[in-house]
């Protein structure tokens, strides 16, 4: 039988456990606000019921860690929480959020991204084959062509990164919580196999440029254009094959 005590015992290595940090994975140790600043909630009961087949795990990777500020971590927490809400609406949870980092010197110039080619270099040169979607947040994002995120579509399964040509993760620019919260869920949608739906402005997979306003609320996942999006994402190997920590 599941117990919070056992869960924390198995997963918390520090001296003091925090439900918000160690279970829900919010870096700032508090429940994030909505992208527009509104209050949010989360259910421990629902989280406890997540497992193989109804959830996926995420590794958040902070690129150029020395340059991250508290407000950037707030933005990331907001994006992750929004992703929980977006996928929770179709019965797909986000279970473990595990934070990782790349130092600025190791990033070798990929801490501040200024072209799509650099995004490709990051997503093809780095990767961690650990049964969780690799979700990169670079310290700086400055794209002249309007790009705000990019992802493998679909992303590789656990254990298959070396057989994967090109990109093996998802990357989100921290361009402000109203934008990045949607982009985070959108790129994860690509990783889970969803393609663009430009003719459906309310849909999550419509690019932000074409989405209805406010864009952070344009996050529907439905049976559209012959694609059953809720069913499709649940068939991805990151949902069907993950380990339980």
């Amino acid at each position: 039988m599941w117990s919070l005590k056992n869960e924390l015992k198995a997963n918390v290595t520090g001296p003091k456990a925090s439900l918000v940090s160690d279970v829900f994975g919010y870096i700032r140790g508090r429940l994030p606000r909505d992208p527009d600043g509104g209050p949010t909630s989360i259910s421990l009961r629902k989280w406890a019921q997540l497992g193989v087949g109804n959830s996926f795990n995420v590794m958040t990777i902070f690129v150029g860690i020395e340059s991250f500020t508290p407000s950037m971590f707030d933005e990331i927490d907001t994006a992750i929480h929004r992703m929980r809400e977006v996928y929770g609406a179709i019965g797909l949870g986000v279970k473990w959020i595990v934070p990782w980092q790349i130092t600025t010197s190791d990033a070798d110039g990929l801490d501040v991204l200024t072209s799509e080619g650099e995004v490709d270099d990051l997503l093809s040169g780095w990767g961690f084959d650990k049964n969780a979607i690799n979700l990169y947040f670079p310290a700086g994002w400055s794209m002249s062509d309007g790009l705000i995120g990019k992802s493998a579509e679909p992303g590789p399964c656990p254990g298959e990164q070396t057989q994967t040509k090109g990109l093996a993760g998802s990357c989100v620019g921290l361009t402000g919580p109203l934008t990045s919260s949607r982009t985070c869920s959108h790129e994860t949608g690509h990783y889970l196999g969803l393609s663009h739906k430009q003719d459906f402005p309310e849909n999550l997979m419509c690019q932000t440029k074409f989405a209805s306003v406010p864009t952070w609320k344009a996050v529907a996942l439905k049976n559209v254009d012959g694609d059953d999006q809720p069913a499709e994402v649940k068939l991805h190997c990151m949902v069907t094959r993950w380990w339980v920590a």
Partner: protein
Amino acid sequence: MSEPRRLAAGDIRNPPLSPAAARELLRAKGSRASRLDAIAVLRLQYDAAVATMLRNVAVDPKDDPVVRACAIAALAVRGERVTTEPEPPPSVRAAQIKAGDILRWRQMVADFDHGTPAAPLRVPMLLPAPATGSPVQTAQPSPQLQARIAAALSLPSHGGSLALQVVMLRCGNIELAAAADTARLNPAALLRAPARPAQLAVHHTQESDYWAASFDIVTEPANGGMRIAVLDLRGRVRFAGTGTGDAHGIAFTLQAADIAGTMPVVLRGRVVPGAFGIDSAISGTRGTARRAPQPFSGPARGQPD
């Protein structure tokens, strides 16, 4: 070509700022994200005034290091080096290294264009040629597509119009185009002097569908034949190989450099007077390991806002 369909896709938005607003924002020292947006807009409006603004940001030790890093890179792409304080923050230091690479690459490409590189090519360890794998398909582009690819190139025209030969390379959903200046495809000359006869363009399809000339192909005489290197936009060798002269031209082979996350590739072809051809190209099925991030060192919990 039988591997599972694997694409990439991204999210885009409208330009967040007008050029005038971007200038104001960069000056005003607002949030990091908005000033990075401002630089993104101003890179496309580059002139003396923008260069001055970027320079001021780049050298200001009190400014946001990430914005400074972005400004340093933007200046380097335009050929300008900036000098910062002796011990800058990590992101500024990393940007200086990147800027140095970009500036060296610019010089190197110009030197190869003139046939006078300062030093021989330094070829890294190459991945073994795969014996089996996915074939890389080659094709000729339509005239319309060739025109689009040509628009992305930066091969020198030497005063006249550039006569190009373009060969498309497709592996899975990765699409590249090798584009050569046919006037430079002179086997005898290539065996005699360094040159930049070609570029490799990458097809990006995420936002607007566009081509970017992401690699330069340079050659130099070596060991009685020819050494070939494919350089990225920081001058790093991503593919390399050799060419051997014979009665008909030059037979060449290219392989991928041993870089994290790279698939082994072998490409064989020929250069004959005024043209090149790809005889065979294979991409392996298992790439090199990707670099692994480190566990988060924290703490971010309870940090002041």
